[in-house]
């Protein structure tokens, strides 16, 4: 009986490692798609109006930073689990 409790606890430790991996992996899906859209649209805008490339690029970095914040919250959560 003691052995089965120890085994169950060992299994739980493994599950928490899987949970950590899943937490960050799932948190990165949305921002991944979002950053792709931001980058693609910025590229379109720069191709359309090359003289605005500087302004578009700095705005793009700001937008990426806000999108990335969600993935970073998932990254922090990984350490908190």
């Amino acid at each position, binding site marked *: 009986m003691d052995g089965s409790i120890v085994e169950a606890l060992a299994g739980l430790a493994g599950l928490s490692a899987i949970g950590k991996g899943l937490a960050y992996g799932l948190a990165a899906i949305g921002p991944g798609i979002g950053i792709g859209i931001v980058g693609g649209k910025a590229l379109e805008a720069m191709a359309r109006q090359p003289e605005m490339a*500087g302004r578009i690029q700095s705005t793009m970095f*700001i937008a990426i930073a806000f999108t990335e914040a969600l993935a970073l919250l998932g990254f*922090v959560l990984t350490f908190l689990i």
Partner: protein
Amino acid sequence: MNPLELLPEKIAELVHELSVLPYNDMHAEGPVTSPTVLTNYVVWGIVALVTVMVMFIVVANREKKQMRLAAESGDVTALAPAGRFVGMIEAGVEFIRDMAIDVIGAKEGPKYVPLLGTFFFFILVSNVYGLLPAGKSIGGAIGGTVALALVSWLAFVWVGFSKNGAYGYLKSLIPEGVRQMPPAGRIVLGGFIFLLEFISYFLVRPLTLAVRLFANLYAGHIILGVFSAFVALFIGTGVGGIAVSGISLVFLVLMYAFEVFVAFIQAYVFTILTAVYIQSSVHAAEH
């Protein structure tokens, strides 16, 4: 013997190498938690700080001398940048100034160039030191990035309160349209938006600034370390091993080049975000 069996051991060694240790004892038992011990990250942070200070003091003195000479002789060509190094620093400062004017505005922007320039050059030089063998970047330890983010946080909160007053700044968190609603909507919706915006302004902003820098650099160092471990582990295991080792070496060089790019881009992102946050504080009354 299968070299992959040794990999977990090598990775544990790598993580230990990258943790916060006393600067003169790389084989210490575990990470340092006492604030009084001088750690490797603190030492390399000081080295980066001294490098930036020396660079700027030397360049500023040369520029002053040139200005004096030009004023005495009346020859404007004496003002041209003296050599590649001075030209490089001038280009960097101009880059920061243009960014500040672009983001914050032509009138308020130049005031914040010293703060933004210090962030940019300190983080950039520190990141480059982090890529040297045995070197450490201040961004590789969460304590270092939290300290940088706190300075940025203090700057934009202080600007917000001193430009708009406490009431004006906190009021600006609620959009203009909600403030003009009937009292019931104003209190319920306004209170809810205020709570969300308060968390976003004062908690999420510094947290993401710190974690972004840390996560990017730490992940980069781990990737470089894992590829180095591959190169070292597979080299002595026959023809196939040498092939794997060679491919890992190619990837290691490519990743190293990418990390140089990351070192620059993360310094730039930290600086431009600080500028954006300061801009939102300066012009809080307008939105």
